[in-house]
């Protein structure tokens, strides 16, 4: 089936099999391997991207369901060589250890801050319910997101 999807501002048209997920489409067809596959069944959040402005788990969306939508992946966050404030905050506050969950964390953080520009620690933790960090580095992830909020608001 033919789909047209805008990813990080660029429109793509491809013939895809209905059974492939949006994650698979992004990684294997568009070569955007920043979006990770963890559990592959909507539990862990490593595959989080934004779809029409909302954080979603791309492993549990068929590529054909994304037809006509506007997707942002981790590759779309930086502005050229300049990191997005959320990325910069993760770097500064050691918001990552092995880094596997990080793209999903950053994309979910973008959704949290879009809906709540100045979240409390509790609100950040609640917002991250759908993202697992198996290094258990949550403390610095939360710190990074709160710092990013300050940077964006200042």
């Amino acid at each position: 089936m033919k789909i047209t999807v805008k990813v990080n501002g660029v429109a793509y048209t491809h013939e895809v099999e209905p059974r492939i997920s949006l994650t698979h489409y992004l990684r294997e067809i568009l070569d955007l391997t920043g979006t990770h596959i963890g559990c592959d069944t909507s539990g862990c959040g490593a595959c989080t991207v934004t779809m029409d402005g909302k954080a979603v788990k791309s492993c549990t969306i068929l590529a054909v369901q994304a037809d006509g939508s506007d997707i942002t992946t981790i590759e779309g966050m930086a502005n050229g060589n300049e990191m997005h404030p959320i990325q910069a905050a993760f770097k500064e506050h050691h918001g990552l250890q092995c880094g596997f969950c990080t793209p999903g964390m950053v994309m979910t953080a973008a959704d949290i801050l879009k809906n709540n520009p100045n979240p409390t620690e509790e609100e950040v933790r609640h917002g991250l319910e759908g993202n697992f960090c198996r290094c258990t580095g949550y403390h610095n992830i939360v710190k990074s997101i709160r710092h990013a909020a300050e940077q964006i608001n200042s």
Partner: protein
Amino acid sequence: MIPSKFNYIKASSVSEAVNLLDEHGFDAKILSGGHSLIPAMKLRLNRPEVVIDIGGIPGLDVITEEGDAVVIGANCTHQQILNSQVIYKNVNILKQTAATIGDVQVRNKGTIGGSLAHADPSADYPATVLACDATIIVAGKNGSRNIAATDFFQGIFTTALEDDEIITAVRFPKIAHGNYHKFYQSASRFAVVGVAVVFDGSGVKVGITGVADTPYRATKVEEAYNGDSSAAEHAVDGVEVMSDHFADVEYRSHLAKVFVKKGLEA
């Protein structure tokens, strides 16, 4: 993980979806948000030959106030329900329920119609639709009909929907006083036990999910209720309580009583 092969058809109207369902019968599955169906297909627990996507059908994602009721389109997402002022003002218990489902990414895609049709015994909405005496509005090849929530759930993953029927909306009467409390399965956020309580005049209506293979109205609690929380003792009277690696029969029964008590005292 990749599901087995299927034909994907995007339906543009309810009648088209119903006709496709009638044509393909058992070989077809309806896709809305996909957050129950797609994982099941990846794990090959479900191998439909035809997937009928109702996600883009116009008008199914609308929440409207109609007199003394609120009608919620089947494709409304949990997040949409959580953010709706109409629901907050008129059926706040449903907002409370939606707030406990999954996580923000799941709430952004999963739908109320999909969750009800899937009828997972640990899903949250069933407790609330039962306690609210909501009506499930369905469409089939012979037109549309209303199913009372108390007639809708018939067993594990089993509902009163006929093979050619899809849910189009859910009608909730306005509820002034009610609450939903649950004991979370800590990884999936499903309900190990979920209890919806609606105060109705001097009486009470109690819906329970997660405890039996079918969500139920705790009629023994409702009969025993006399204004305090002592009736909570009857939460699992006459019920065959489920046992799994999250909670055995004794623990689950205890949780049910604790959460009914919590609801009656709230």
